[in-house]
């Protein structure tokens, strides 16, 4: 993956988030405060704008800019979580002009650790971690996994959050009443990962 692929990823992710903005907010309305779509759309639009106008020395520097933009713009709990994730990934890829899929999977694993450290969530607590942890693990375990398979798997992980009871974040206030809806952060994480795998698939072919 080179700088252009990375840019393509984030621009595609932004497009999907803009498309799904209302859906994300609707999910968050059911178990949170209804702003996840607005938060993500605001943050990623700004990321997309920055990427369109700025040059970066390396992919680490690019991801650092993404992190700071998300930290500054997102507003909700997802801001410091995604912000921390991209900050950790940027550190892992510091100084690299490009990287292998294994490098990237490792960087995303650092990002996952950052999310868990920041939010103290474990798997099964109905958060974005329920997408991040299994997807990154699967990719790390099998770096040669096909992109379609990863996209499929990511979707399944997201779907599983529906049956979960929220234990972290705002939705936790609802207790058992949080069961029955996809977690908004899990859905936005699916958008991020499926955009990534889509771009990697194109880059490989």
């Amino acid at each position: 993956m080179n700088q252009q692929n990375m840019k393509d990823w984030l621009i595609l992710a932004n497009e999907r988030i803009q498309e799904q903005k209302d859906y994300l907010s609707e999910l968050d309305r059911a178990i949170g405060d209804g702003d996840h779509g607005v938060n993500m759309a605001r943050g990623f639009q700004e990321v997309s704008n920055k990427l369109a106008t700025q040059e970066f020395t390396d992919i680490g520097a690019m991801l650092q800019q993404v992190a700071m933009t998300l930290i500054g713009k997102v507003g909700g709990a997802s801001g410091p979580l995604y912000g921390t994730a991209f900050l950790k990934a940027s550190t892992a890829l510091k100084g690299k002009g490009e990287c292998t899929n294994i490098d990237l999977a490792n960087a995303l694993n650092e990002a996952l650790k950052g999310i868990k450290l920041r939010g103290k969530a474990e798997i099964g607590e109905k958060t974005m971690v329920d997408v991040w942890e299994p997807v990154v693990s699967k990719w790390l375990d099998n770096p040669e996994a096909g992109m379609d398979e990863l996209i499929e798997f990511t979707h399944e992980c997201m779907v599983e959050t529906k049956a979960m009871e929220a234990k972290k974040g705002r939705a936790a206030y609802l207790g058992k009443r949080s069961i029955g809806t996809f977690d908004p952060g899990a859905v936005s994480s699916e958008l991020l990962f499926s955009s990534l795998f889509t771009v990697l698939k194109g880059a490989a072919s």
Partner: protein
Amino acid sequence: MSVGIVLISHSHELVEGLRKILHQIQPEVEIAIAGGTEENEIGTSAIKIKQAIEKADSESGVAVLFDLGSALLNAQLAVELLETNTKVAFCDAPLVEGAYTAVIEAGIGSSLEEVVKAAESVKEVPKLL
């Protein structure tokens, strides 16, 4: 110098109003606020929080109070982003009631630990007589 106080809320107005109440009681304590997103919409901003901590910074440290859980995530991130080595302590205390007590405690020159303890103790004080 007395301990500084940082008030974080999802609403800019909320902490602006709270600061005014506290300023009336104790005008000498440094109180910095970080309310809302960068656009002053509902939310929090690690950048704003970082700036508020820098503003309230004193040799005696800074006690941080916040409204809801997601503010804490941004506050902890803000502390990691700090370039200074300010002593920062988070209060496990209700925002308004804790801040009231924290400001009084800071005003009499108590240490950061004492200010945090005072703020946290309000949970045990019944509000109804």
